[in-house]
């Protein structure tokens, strides 16, 4: 909402500076987003007068006005035709600076003398766009005939415009008068209302206009006034200036007058050419099936049954509060006009304006809810203006339908309520003063104030509303700083799990950089997590159909892979889809963060060749029938091929055990000891076969990790081996045993024995490890694998594993003999149970 400062001052009598007014209004809740100072860039632009207009000798579309600048006469070349000799115009001589009307961004350009089609132009007649007043570049700006010749343009135009960022609760503030009421209350001046007194008796209705409101819930009031002897033409300069400054384009007298009233009082008006309205009848009702209307923009629209329209005796003539009809539009030949001033249902107008994407200054005001009392006041003011500018002869009020007048009840406010809410005292005089300056009616009964809102303040309906009025008018500076006291609450529902913080700390400690990624993604991004030929779906298409997935599940996954696909990587589930995505790149909520994380890995790979360890700990979204989706916080980590190891430039290559180390530490720190969970082979198309594993606890999948399948990596444009880790942290939490418990170790020296065995390659390390621990009981304290070997020195199909074993007794130092005996038991057990051979 743009309010010319001069207009505001006229209605308030305020003499303060524009900055001061802007600050005080902002603090009171009427935020001034910007102060536009038209003219602050005007340089040497003066009021000139067109002396004569000669034709251009070489171009029919150009003319040669000669301009009196007050001190000399200058001939220029001009392409506009909307002026005549004797008009006062804004003249920019060569050397002046103007806004470039053809630039995309606002740019000031110095005007130079130029030769146009053989004639030299030493200046320019300016459009409002070149002056930076509006975006209108059609024709030049013609000033009021009283503009001072030869004086700087700022004296004739100029002035500051306050641009307000207004809130949804104050329809009254969408008007100069509404802002003026606030400003006057803040400055202690009297509002000079522009609404003329009721002179209804002077111009009685000349003919009956029949009004009919079908549903008062949709149209609380409809008031109308006829204007006779209409002269449609250009409005006077003062009116056009104000409209332009307020951001409304001047059109013709009648329309300008209605727009002026809308800006001034906040009530949108509509003008019908009365002769085109059939049957002397105006009705307000919703559209009937099959009804159509050609609106002002020339569109032939079919009206849906919920559309509120204005109808004449035969059918729709306007979309109520949104747009008029073409057939009843006021034209150059209109002789009689019917002015409509009505109160429409905010919800109905809002829906229609949204549905048709026709949001206008008028609909914006109706949407916020206008008071019915305003309709007749606005008509009165509009008729006065029309007469003042010589555009017609109006009736004050021809017809008025107001079926169910409403009278809001006063709000009762106990004085002590103010202090109770604000935490600071306000004395009664101050309260009364604040409220009456805003024109609230006050009635004091004992310790209670009965507050009656002025009709334009329907937003004030409860004591807290009244308290706010007092507080903001006195000023929030009054409020002191105290801290809340009293009882502290118990555990809150939905309390954030501190273990989430711990998991992040563990991952950071393990070398991973935390990422925060978007929840919105595309199906294509998730589809890339499966090799393209597998689903036989075209690239960048949805995630494939049910049958294709059934086949994939059958042929490309083992049990662990299917468990992974069921929850942690549920690519065959239907994602939650946005109805109104910003783009197809982010039209669904993610089922997994892995796609986004592989992209992040790729993006970082462009500038880093090692230590690409990233993790993300944000929810995935799994739809549930009839309920909100489940939003489990899955942890997703990705790892590049090389990591720093040792001296400056030394790197190690990431292999599966590297990732396992991360998994084990994360699980252990989450309360699940490493040896509790089992690691098994994983077959899933996202992961490389034979280089990935699934982690389960009591049959429930907790995590999956491994090398990303080569084709998948390629789909993400990754140029090296990459690794991924997915952890179902909520499942880990459920499996975890709580805080770790202490167990004592032997205080006596340990006997250390190394053990190197050769076993069949099919025998898993877990089996060997398990056999060692069982056989070593009770003296074996630990068995640590320190090497694996396959190769020349070992028969094919076999591998060698080497362990460091530590033996100790709780109550004595073991002798060498005792340790040897225990160790030999372990060796024999391995030989018998697993067919192991000792390696020499």
């Amino acid at each position, binding site marked *: 909402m743009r309010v010319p400062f001069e207009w505001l001052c006229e209605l308030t009598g305020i003499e303060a500076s524009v900055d001061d007014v802007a600050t005080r209004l902002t603090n009171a809740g009427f935020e001034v987003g910007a102060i536009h100072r038209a003219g602050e860039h005007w340089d040497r632009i003066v009021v000139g007068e067109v002396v004569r207009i000669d034709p251009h000798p070489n171009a029919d579309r150009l003319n040669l006005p000669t301009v009196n600048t007050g001190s000399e006469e200058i001939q220029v070349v001009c392409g506009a035709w909307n002026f005549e000799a004797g008009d006062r115009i804004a003249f920019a001589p060569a050397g002046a600076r103007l806004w470039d009307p053809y630039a995309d961004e606002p740019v000031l350009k110095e005007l130079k003398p130029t030769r146009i089609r053989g004639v030299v132009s030493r200046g320019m007649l300016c459009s409002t766009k070149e002056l930076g007043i509006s975006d209108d570049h059609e024709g030049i700006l013609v000033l009021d005939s009283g503009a001072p010749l030869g004086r700087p343009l700022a004296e004739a135009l100029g002035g500051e415009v306050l641009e307000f960022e207004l809130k949804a609760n104050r329809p009254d503030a969408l008007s100069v008068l509404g802002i003026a009421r606030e400003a006057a209350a803040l400055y202690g001046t009297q509002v000079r209302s522009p609404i003329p007194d009721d002179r209804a008796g002077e111009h009685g209705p000349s003919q009956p206009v029949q009004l009919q409101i079908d549903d008062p819930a949709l149209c609380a009031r409809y008031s109308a006034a006829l204007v006779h002897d209409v002269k449609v033409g250009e409005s006077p300069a003062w009116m056009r200036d104000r409209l332009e400054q307020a951001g409304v384009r001047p059109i013709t007298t009648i329309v300008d007058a209605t727009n002026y009233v809308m800006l001034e009082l906040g009530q949108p008006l509509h003008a019908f050419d009365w002769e085109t309205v059939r049957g002397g009848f105006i009705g307000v009702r919703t559209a009937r099936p099959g009804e159509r209307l050609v609106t002002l923009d020339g569109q032939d629209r079919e009206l849906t049954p919920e559309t509120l329209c204005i109808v004449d005796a035969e059918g729709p003539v306007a979309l109520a509060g949104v747009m008029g009809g073409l057939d009843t539009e006021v034209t150059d030949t209109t002789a009689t006009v019917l002015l409509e001033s009505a109160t429409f249902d905010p919800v109905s107008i809002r829906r229609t304006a949204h549905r048709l994407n026709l949001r206008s200054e008028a609909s914006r005001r109706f949407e916020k809810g206008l008071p019915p009392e305003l309709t007749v006041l606005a008509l009165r003011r509009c008729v006065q203006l029309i007469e003042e500018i010589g555009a017609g002869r109006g009736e004050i009020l021809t017809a008025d339908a107001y079926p169910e007048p409403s009278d809001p009840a006063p709000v009762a406010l106990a004085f002590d309520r103010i202090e109770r809410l604000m935490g600071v005292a306000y004395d009664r005089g101050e309260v009364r003063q604040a409220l009456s300056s805003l024109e609230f009616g006050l009635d004091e009964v004992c310790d209670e104030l009965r507050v009656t809102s002025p009709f334009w303040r329907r937003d004030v309906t409860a004591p807290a509303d009244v308290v706010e009025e007092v507080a903001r008018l006195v000023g929030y500076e009054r409020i*002191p700083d105290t801290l809340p006291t*009293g009882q502290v609450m118990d555990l809150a529902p939905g309390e954030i799990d501190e273990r989430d913080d711990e998991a992040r700390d563990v991952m950071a400690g393990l070398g991973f950089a935390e990422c925060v990624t978007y929840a919105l993604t595309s199906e294509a991004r998730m589809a890339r997590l499966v090799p393209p030929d597998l689903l036989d779906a075209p690239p960048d298409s949805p995630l494939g159909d049910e049958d294709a997935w059934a086949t994939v599940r059958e042929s490309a996954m083992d049990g662990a892979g299917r468990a992974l696909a069921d929850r942690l990587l549920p690519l065959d589930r239907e994602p939650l889809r946005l109805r109104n995505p910003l783009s197809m790149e982010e039209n669904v909520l993610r089922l997994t963060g892995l796609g986004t994380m592989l992209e992040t890995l790729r993006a970082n790979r462009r500038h880093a060749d090692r230590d690409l360890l990233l993790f993300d700990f944000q929810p995935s979204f799994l739809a549930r029938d009839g309920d909100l989706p489940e939003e489990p916080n899955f942890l997703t980590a990705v790892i590049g091929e090389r990591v720093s190891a040792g001296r400056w430039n030394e790197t190690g290559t990431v292999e599966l055990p590297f990732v396992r180390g991360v998994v084990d530490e994360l699980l252990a720190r989450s309360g699940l000891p490493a040896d509790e969970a089992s690691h098994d082979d994983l077959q899933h198309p996202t992961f490389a076969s034979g280089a990935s594993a699934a982690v389960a606890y009591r049959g429930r999948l907790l995590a999956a990790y491994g090398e990303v399948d080569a084709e998948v990596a390629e789909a993400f444009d990754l140029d090296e081996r990459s690794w991924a880790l997915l952890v179902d942290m909520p499942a880990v939490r459920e499996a975890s045993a709580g805080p770790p418990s202490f167990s004592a170790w032997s205080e006596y020296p340990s006997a250390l024995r190394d053990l190197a065995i050769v076993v069949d390659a099919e025998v898993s390390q877990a089996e060997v490890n398990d056999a060692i621990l069982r056989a070593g009981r009770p003296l074996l304290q630990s068995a640590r694998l320190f090497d694996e070997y396959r190769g020349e020195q070992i028969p094919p199909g076999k591998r060698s594993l080497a362990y460091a074993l530590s033996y100790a007794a709780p109550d004595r130092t073991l002798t060498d003999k005792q340790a040897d005996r225990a160790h030999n038991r372990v060796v024999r057990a391995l030989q018998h149970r697993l067919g192991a051979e000792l390696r020499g």
Partner: protein
Amino acid sequence: MQERLDALLTSARAELAVAADDAALEQWRVTHLGRRSELTGLLRSVGSLPREERREAGQAANAARRELEEALETRQTELRRGADGAQLDVTMPGYPVRLGSLHPLTRTLREIRRVLAPLGFRAVSGPEVEWDRYNFELLNIPADHPARDMWDTFHIDDKARPGELLLRTHTSPVQARVMEQIQPPVRVIVPGKVYRYEDRDASHEAEFMQVEGLAIDKHITMADLRGTLTYFVRAMFGPDRELRIRASYFPFTEPSAEAEMSCHACNGDGCPVCGGTGWIEILGSGMVHPKVLADVGYDPDVYQGFAFGMGVERIAMLKYGVTDIRSFYRNDLRFLRQLR
């Protein structure tokens, strides 16, 4: 005795000075400090001296021993500085340390939680996909209310219940969720992701983080709100910060207030960070609307309290001097490492 010790020390020092490697040092150690060394012999002979001399001789011999041991250690250190005798360059960079990092938004959220915890605020979370009822209706924003324009909303395409599921546009729905479940006193903060149907640019994100604060009891006042916010900005941005609040409008608070703090970069003098005004908008707040309280079953004549909400990225941008909000979601390691 002392003379023999002196002679012994002199020759030992001379020999040590020319010992140039570990083997020579070991040889020296055996010769001068070993079991068969002269010094050890002298120490053993102390016992045979007359009682009155024993004490002094013993002390002298032990002092000599300590001196030789220290000399050996010093010489070892000298030799280790470099095989070629060059000094170790302490300006060499350390070996790469592979320690990861927490995201700056995580760090900022933790700091906010840490600052508010002593005032009794507990951190809670709620769903990001939300019912219209919680995101709007229970916050005094009925359907078709123009205030809905304040939040450009992503809607979930849900055939079964069209128009009911959406991506929450603020963390405020968790206010209603908490209050529905427990009776006052309530004191919670709600960190979490929110969504706006909005084109991205340097200062706008379609996905971003908010922290909501809510305190409800019988006597929580607007002054308590102001005091809490003052405490908060000083804890986050330094003890010199001033707070000012001005009237505003949110459908779920009445009265409502916009809070600004004096600019931490220029101390209020005006600079590019604060756009020359000396003040920075930091959050929106107000006293919880009686209708919001009533709708969750609280008696608004008994209970009252305040709520506030802030953008976490905005706080982090101010704290770390980040100028483009999208940086937080690009996850460029150079950015993450800088702000670790």
